[in-house]
């Protein structure tokens, strides 16, 4: 009985030391804000890059055999080549390494870590989003494309008004999943001294020399966020399924 009480008092003490004293909980709060900012901005960049890359890739795959040889097909082949290199390099190297290359080499002159992090994670996410969106574009029935063209829409208009909206609707749940993955991946932002959620917990650990509380707290916050967003994705999926019928 006495042992239990001692244990409980120990936990209380730990809690006070790690989170209450010196307002240490603010490291977690500020870190959480950084993590969410980073994830949201990066996913937006990722979607823009991803849609563009997906359009280039699927345009190439669908049309290159039927195109007349000339400047147009040459440009398309070149763009497709660039897109493939981008996909291979980004998906073939660790995101931490990309982040550090961006921070220490490519954008070494930038003073905003948030900007550097957003760009690095955005470019990384774009590669994964591109393949998701491409699968969505390829899944839209070819007849939709022909119907658009037969009305007089040009290629880009057909993509914009008819194909992309349908493709995005199909892959929306998968895209939302990509957001959840990214949320966890940003935990390596501490490598460029960004004070995100993970780094916030680590700072507390460094100050109090007690690893349990801060690290479990960080893990718990990630878990809660992931569960919340997963719940939203599932609801979204159900909604989309119902509207299809």
């Amino acid at each position, binding site marked *: 009985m006495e042992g239990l009480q001692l244990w409980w008092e120990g936990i209380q003490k730990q809690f006070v030391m790690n989170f209450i004293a010196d307002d240490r909980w603010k490291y977690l709060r500020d870190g959480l804000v950084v993590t969410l900012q980073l994830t949201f901005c990066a996913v937006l960049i990722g979607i823009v890059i991803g849609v563009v890359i997906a359009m280039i890739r699927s345009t190439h795959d669908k049309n290159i055999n039927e195109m007349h040889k000339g400047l147009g097909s040459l440009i398309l082949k070149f763009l497709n080549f660039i897109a493939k290199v981008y996909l291979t390099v980004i998906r073939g190297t660790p995101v931490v390494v990309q982040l550090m290359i961006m921070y220490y080499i490519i954008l070494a002159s930038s003073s905003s870590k948030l900007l550097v992090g957003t760009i690095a994670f955005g470019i990384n996410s774009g590669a994964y989003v591109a393949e998701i969106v491409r699968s969505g574009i390829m899944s839209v029935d070819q007849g939709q494309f022909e*119907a658009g063209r037969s*009305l007089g*829409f040009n290629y880009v208009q057909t993509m914009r008004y008819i194909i992309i909206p*349908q493709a995005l609707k199909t892959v929306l749940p998968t895209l939302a999943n990509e957001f959840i993955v990214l949320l966890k991946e940003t935990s390596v932002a501490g490598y460029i001294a960004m004070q995100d959620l993970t780094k916030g917990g680590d700072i507390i650990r460094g100050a109090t020399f007690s690893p349990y509380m801060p690290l479990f707290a960080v893990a718990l916050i990630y878990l809660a966020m992931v569960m919340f967003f997963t719940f939203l994705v599932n609801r979204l999926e159900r909604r989309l399924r119902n509207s299809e019928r």
Partner: protein
Amino acid sequence: MSGNEALIRVENLQKHYNKGVIKALDGINTEIKKGEVVVVIGPSGSGKSTFLRCLNLLEVPTGGHIFFEGVDITDAKTDINVHRQRMGMVFQHFNLFPHMTILKNMTIAPMKLQGKSEAEATEMAMSLLRRVGLEDRANAYPSQLSGGQKQRIAIVRALCMQPEVMLFDEPTSALDPEMVGEVLEVMKQLAKENMTMVVVTHEMGFAREVGTRVMFMADGKQVEEGTPEEIFTDPKSERLQSFLAKVL
């Protein structure tokens, strides 16, 4: 353009695959005049759909020329998008846009391509919907319609662009039998209003009743061409005779 000149003139049209090993179209020549209803019949694999899809370059021919309103649309310098706006097309599988309401399906092209205001486009769409008896479905989505309704919508969607010619690619082949009639009825109506039509179909009754000219194709060639009377009651070639023996 004078009234007697052909609306569409096809010269030695060819579509080859595998560098000429497969000849889906092998030298088609024909003229389609304003107000004509040309019905294309033939066994499956005869190239009739390919022929139709070449007329608006959904299928790019490998040889020959197509003149539409006097312009060679097979010329690489021609902007085909402009000419496609004047050629409506109806597909076997309807191809309505599932993410748009019926009204939006019909108004998007006139608004984006002809610069019509939403009010103008809506007014025209509604009057066309009334003509096919579907005005109460304007705000429904395609998935809520029956096959016959979808195809009637597909026809009026094409009509919204006020085309010079309508191309029909087996418009009733994907329909349940009891829905074929309602679609054919709309097409008959259209023919009565002097719309120029090219129709690929297996509906011999329609060909006979509505067609001004019937074209019989086999193996990528036009084997016989004539009035419905000539084709159906006095077939000359053996190919046509054996085809008609099977379908009639």
